[in-house]
């Protein structure tokens, strides 16, 4: 989980506090759909798991994203 959090942090391009319970769309003021796509691509690169847009939209927290990425 720690590695996953570090990976997602890189998407934000600014220092952010991130835990497994963080709602990733609310971490920065201007979360955009492009950031969402970047998260999907990051997961695909690192976890070899291609999330559909619907699967991504169903996630709210970092932990839910992690579970989707790792198939838990």
């Amino acid at each position: 989980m720690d590695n996953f959090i570090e990976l997602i942090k890189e998407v934000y391009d600014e220092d952010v506090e991130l835990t497994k319970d963080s709602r990733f769309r609310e971490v920065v003021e201007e979360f955009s759909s492009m950031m969402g796509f970047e998260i999907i691509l990051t997961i695909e690169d690192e976890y070899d798991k291609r999330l559909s847009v619907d699967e991504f939209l169903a996630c709210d927290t970092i932990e839910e994203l992690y579970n989707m990425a790792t198939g838990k």
Partner: protein
Amino acid sequence: MPVIRTNHVKIVGVGSGLPKNKMSIYDVDKDNYFPKEKIDKMHNNVGINNLYEADINQTAADLCYPVAEALIEKLGWEKDSIDGLIFSTETPDYTTPATACFLQGKLGLSTDCIAIDITSGCPGSINTIGVGSQFIETGACRRVLILLGNTVRRTTSKQDYGLAYLISDAGAAVALEYTEEENPTTIIMYADGSQYEKLILPTSGFRHPKTPETAIVKEDEYGNRRSMDQYYMDGHSIFDFAARAVPRILKEVRKEHGWEEDDVDYYLLHQPNLYMVNLIIKRAKSSTDKFPINITKYGNTSNASISLLMNDLNDENKLSNTNLVMSSFGGGLYWNAVATHVDDVCCIKMTV
């Protein structure tokens, strides 16, 4: 993989022309359909400050013509020495005749000249180099003038957030010439027509003729308002496509050309929006210093964006004895890339 290799073609000139009408993105829509906060977001996330718009009676050919004349003069080319003219646009003067023929006549070029249109928006900048280089490599031509232009703003809804605040009109010219000494160049061109609807002007041809019904403005699920007579872009799909395809083709063309990462001085990418460019850079795992950016200055200038990047590099004295990888991508879908060496490129940047 469709790879084109040439050995005796070089880029000897690049020109670009921006219309005189320059506007802040805050002045795009006088009716303020979108709230200021949303425009702020476009400014902050997508990096757009200013856009350029052609006059209502100014076509893509009109944007290119003065650039072509100025570049020909600066190069010192005799008009009758130009034996190839390629015009790439998605906003031609006519569907027939080819606008390349109109421009050939207007420029006073010889009839011993290939003149063809290539229908393309943003990816036209490299598709044309792929075609024009082969005219020279096969011995058909010695000097090919490529003209690139679009006036997409005219058929873009001001209430389409994903386009109206991104797109600029512009014209450009690239001069290719036969060179006796070897100048190895590698070009890769891909297409995915299964996604042709992702970026489309629906009533621009004979498939869906314009009718009073196609002019009716409708609102989509994101609050954008446009008619079928105006450009449509599925921004999510285009973003997803570019973020995957472009980093891959940059690596492919570099390897096919036999270059290591350190051999590349600059990667010149089409400039669709700042976030996308930055993401491609991140995914390409290369140095950010190798990727010049001009989207913040000019907006998305479609197939003129790479010529503008070259002009800006030249202004900084960085376009001499330089190894370039260039890539354009967009509607079609097309994505393409070229690896080549340039030296002593004649450059012109002007208002048209």
